[in-house]
């Protein structure tokens, strides 16, 4: 149940702070998104630059890069996901505790990028795990990564705690573990997780 904005302002003037549990809960969640500390390719350099003083990711409470998936809330897929690395990425994602979010950073992570037609590069990590924010760019500038953070924060803010569209950790039915692709004789098997990724309809 949302609080009426005008009433909230009026009460604020009188020194009364009104909020909902949902708002407070989501405020807490979005203000301390701890990313997982791993980089896959050159996008990771931009990710590192984002955490440094000039771009200062600490403003968003997201400067604590955790070296363990158990302590991380978010995964930044920063770079080319090779077919050899993809099972490990999915496995790391499975090891993260809910609630967990994914930012696919850069052309390679979202589609394979310049290596799309290569024999060894996955055509986008969204084929195996659900991605919350995609950022294009090769590599995206730190500002683009900050934009992705803010988009993700808005997304978390808008998540209701009950009913349709609630986060996975509050939904007992939701799928929390995603099948890890197997290294086959010619390609990864399966080539995509049908429950996560369907072939997008191209409008020409």
């Amino acid at each position, binding site marked *: 149940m949302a609080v009426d904005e005008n009433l909230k302002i009026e009460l604020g003037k009188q020194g009364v702070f009104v909020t909902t549990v949902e708002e407070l809960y989501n405020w807490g969640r979005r203000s301390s998104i701890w990313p997982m500390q791993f980089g896959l390719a050159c996008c990771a350099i931009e990710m590192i630059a984002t955490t440094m003083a000039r771009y200062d990711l600490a403003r968003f409470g997201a400067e604590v890069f955790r070296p363990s998936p158990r302590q991380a809330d978010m995964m930044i897929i920063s770079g080319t996901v090779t077919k*050899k690395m993809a099972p490990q990425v999915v496995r790391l994602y499975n090891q993260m505790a809910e609630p967990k979010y994914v930012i696919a950073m850069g052309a390679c992570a979202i589609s394979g990028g310049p290596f799309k037609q290569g*024999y060894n590069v996955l055509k986008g990590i969204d084929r195996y795990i659900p991605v919350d924010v995609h950022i294009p760019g090769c590599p995206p500038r730190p500002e683009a990564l900050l934009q992705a953070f803010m988009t993700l924060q808005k997304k978390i803010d808008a998540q209701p705690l009950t009913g349709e569209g609630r986060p996975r950790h509050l939904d007992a039915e939701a799928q929390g573990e995603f099948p890890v692709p197997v*290294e*086959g*004789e*010619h*390609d990864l098997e399966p*080539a995509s997780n049908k429950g996560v990724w369907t072939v997008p309809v191209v409008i020409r």
Partner: protein
Amino acid sequence: MKTVEEIKTAIEAAVPGVGLTIIPNPGPSGQHSLLLAPEHAASVAKFLRDDAEFTLDFLSNVSGVDWPDKEIAEKVKVTRQVTKTVDGEEQSVEETVEEVRKHVQPGFLEVVYHLYSVAKKHGPVTLRMRTINRSDQVELPSLTPIWRSAEFQEREIFDLYGVVFVGHPDLRRLLMWDGFKDHPMRRDYVEPDDYEYEPTPHDSVLLKAKAHQAAVAGRESAQ
């Protein structure tokens, strides 16, 4: 630096019975290379590294080359007996005809080594080795025991071209996983058909995307 002919003479003097062929490079650089017989490769490599005059102590690069089977069409003049009717009577006449004969030149895999000398500041000396074919006789001697820097590059060639280096200390795939069966850099590599989503197809990708859609449509109509 000596010319490739002089290097060939020096090697032949040092390693008796060695099979060496000069492969000329017609380009302006004129970097001719030496084709080694695989059975003498180790002794030739050892000589080039340890000889006081060459001291090729630095292996800068190992590359693989895939030469697929090549069909060669040749025009040959053939003389044959033809029965013709000349002035109302049948005669056997000899006639010369041009005929196109095709034969297949079997393919092979090739490995190229570029050697330099840091001590003598000269190079490169280019060595080549060729396998017998592309399918079952793909063994070549490893030069990793001579130049340690060959280790990863030979592993990469094993991975991407399928050349088996005999004597390599740790011959595993380098870039692809162990259970992978193909050799992606070979000319006849068939990639998995994953062209289901191509938002901006062009050129060869457009053809592959169309072929994929045709295959999917064919499968759906068959069901």
